[in-house]
């Protein structure tokens, strides 16, 4: 009994891949989305003479950089099968904490640390409720969404914190060189970091495995709760980073800061091709989606179309990019 299973034949060779990288790229969501982005870019350049201006384009990036920072972490969280709707409220709480610190005379390094620490603490709170107590994240984070912003309201009421130190303004208003803002550099850097984390590391692989089947992942020896805990921490941390940038850009803190952003961040992630049911999606997709949303807002803005109307376009895009391929498939059948 030495040879078994192969029934006397030589083991058959299984190729690594069926399709080359080119074929996979052609069928990818990212390419479709990229085409949309290019089309919007071209349409905008024709529609407005002010569009193809380096400073204007640079300004436009502020429409999405802060949201995109959160969207990277949110993408991982959604791929793992969870969601965090409290991100905008975390921004509010971080900003409030930073503003309060300013009142006690904190300098820029302390403010930044407090912002990041508050974000981490909020993320940890969500993480404990979801991973330790086993509660559904969508409900938990609807709760903490009210709770975190609620604390900001208790602290600030209808008041505001101002008086941030002058050098604190750099995070939201500074430029690294020429038209390249600090925020944009940070966005690009984080995009690369999250790309590596999701697509090039063991951790990223575990995120996908958990999102496709958390039970089987756990039965494969993956510490599911630990991975999810880290993802909630990361999302909280990124909200803290976004809070620093946004607060610095605005120069003040009100409890209504970043109101409604959670849904815009989720929209960005879903538009980027991340399945809301978990298990699939990519960072390049989210990056392109960020640009699409930013370009739409900016382009329509140049045409004097107000932001709220642009949201129609974003909403149509969100549903359309999923609905059209399905409608097409139904039509052909």
């Amino acid at each position, binding site marked *: 009994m030495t040879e078994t299973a192969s029934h006397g034949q030589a083991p058959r060779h*299984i190729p*690594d891949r*069926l399709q080359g990288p080119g074929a996979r790229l052609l069928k990818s969501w990212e390419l479709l989305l990229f085409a949309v982005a290019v089309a919007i870019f071209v349409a905008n350049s024709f529609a407005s003479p002010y569009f193809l201006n380096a400073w204007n384009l640079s300004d436009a990036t502020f429409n999405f950089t802060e949201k995109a920072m959160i969207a990277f972490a949110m993408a991982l969280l959604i791929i793992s099968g969870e969601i965090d709707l409290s991100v905008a409220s975390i921004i509010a709480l971080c900003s409030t904490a930073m503003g309060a610190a300013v009142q006690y005379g904190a300098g820029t390094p302390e403010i930044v640390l407090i912002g990041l620490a508050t974000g981490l603490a909020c993320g940890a709170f969500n993480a404990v409720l979801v991973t330790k107590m086993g509660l559904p994240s969508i409900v938990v984070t609807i709760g903490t969404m009210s709770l975190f912003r609620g604390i900001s309201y208790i602290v600030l009421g209808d008041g505001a914190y101002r008086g941030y130190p002058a050098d604190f303004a750099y995070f939201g208003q500074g430029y690294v060189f020429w038209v390249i803002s600090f925020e944009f550099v940070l966005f690009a850097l984080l995009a690369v970091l999250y790309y590596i984390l999701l697509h090039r590391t063991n951790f*990223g692989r575990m995120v996908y495995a958990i999102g496709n*089947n958390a039970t089987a992942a756990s039965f494969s020896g993956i510490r599911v709760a630990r991975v999810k805990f880290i993802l909630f921490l990361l999302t909280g941390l990124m909200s803290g980073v976004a809070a620093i940038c946004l607060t610095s850009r605005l120069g003040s803190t009100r409890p209504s800061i970043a109101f409604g952003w959670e849904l815009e961040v989720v929209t960005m992630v879903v538009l980027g091709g991340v399945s809301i049911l978990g298990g699939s999606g990519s960072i390049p997709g989210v990056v392109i989606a960020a640009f699409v949303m930013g370009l739409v807002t900016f382009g329509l803005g140049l045409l004097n179309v107000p932001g709220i109307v642009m949201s129609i376009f974003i909403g149509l895009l969100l549903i359309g990019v999923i609905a059209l391929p399905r409608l097409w498939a139904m039509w052909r059948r």
Partner: protein
Amino acid sequence: MQVSLTTPPVAESRNGATADAAPVLRLEGITKTFPGVKALDGVTLELYPGQVTALVGENGAGKSTIVKTLTGIYQPDGGTISLGGEPVHFATAQDATAAGITAIHQETVLFDELSVAENIFIGHAPRGRFGLIDWSKMRRDAQEILSRIDADLDPDMPLRELGIASKHLVAIARALSVDARVVIMDEPTAALSHKEIEELYELVERLRAEGRAILFISHKFDEIFRIADRYTVFRDGQHVGSGLIADVDEAELVRLMVGRSVDQIFPQRAHNVGDEVLKVVGYAHPTEFDEINFTLRRGEILGFYGLVGAGRSEVMQALFGVTRPSKGAVRIDGQVRVIRSPAEAVENGIVYVPEDRGRQGAVIGLPIFQNVTLPSLAQTSRGGFLRLSEEFALAREYTERLDLRAAALDQDVGNLSGGNQQKVVIAKWLATKPKVIILDEPTKGIDIGSKAAVHGFMAELAAQGLSVIMVSSEIPEVLGMSDRVIVMREGLIAAELEGEALTPENLVRHAAGIGAQP
């Protein structure tokens, strides 16, 4: 009750089980095609009033497709269905129900949050004034049907509070509530205990006596020969034979199912077991098992036999760190180890191939190679960064050893057959070079070819010095593969059998608790 294993009891001829009775339901030339698969290819099926027709076939033979066609979930691409001689067409599940066809499914498909009465009547609840549901009539009717089948259940009790057997009774009451002419039972005994199965047989008898036509889908030959009047065999979506049970034997049915005559052959093994690898002492759980003591040696295959629900999987999942025992200790190579999670089990060299492949085994949605390397990422990566070439190499090594049939290693594991998915799960664990591999019903629901491959591989693993625990409910498999067998009953170890004592009769007696009597 006597269970005969060596020869199937010949079904006594029953009333009406003659060839010339008129079928109540007749399917002819039914064809159903899915993208890439011809699930049903011109099949014929006839059901007779007052008779039980067993439908047998391997997985993928088209049994579940025919059930879905009969219950109006699928519409056939071609062929005719006639009921009482009249051609019928079921556009929806409701049409099928209205025509008097009802199904009791593999997993009792009912509603936990609704009451017993509602589960019986949902879809056709009695209506009162203004077309509103008449709850008091519904309760009365439910009570009446339940008492007809001697089921002592409160109609107002929410279903979630009932056990599996009681849920089956509710499903049967539901079948009776529509005054079904045709009752489909899709592996109804798969999750039932011995006693519950006996009660189910009595109900089948009653349904038969009431003149209903019963389609009984089962993998268990002993029960087919015990309760069926007729048989129909499907293979690869085609009808390959049917007739009276009295005119057929087990070997003939198997020949029809697999298309060739096979005796299940198990690999020959030399019994040379080595040192003790695993020792479990005084393992206990508040509700699931108690006093579990056993040892496992190097190169040994230890069988765990028992009825479904005897606590075997629960013990294994505790060993694997899924659940925590309340008492007891595990020694691996003489060292006491505490295993609190599957991750820790894997670190300690214990791996587990679960029974529920789709949910707990393979990560459907991930490619084959990623499934294989999932627990071995530390080995294939460097500094936490993936190295795809290493992953492909590792995946290739183990999938080829297991003779996996796949188009490519980056194919989604969900596109593989059950047998090949099982090979991927086993390959995943072998790549971690474990000390102990636990296989929970390793060949359940996989085709005979893959079965032989899994058996062969188990033998090879043991020969190479791996220790194997095999949980199985199939007596031939337990007898053919194990060096030693532990029989469990109601959460306790009922017997440990070896050598001469390892006989089918002993297994059954201990599992059923008959062995306890003098």
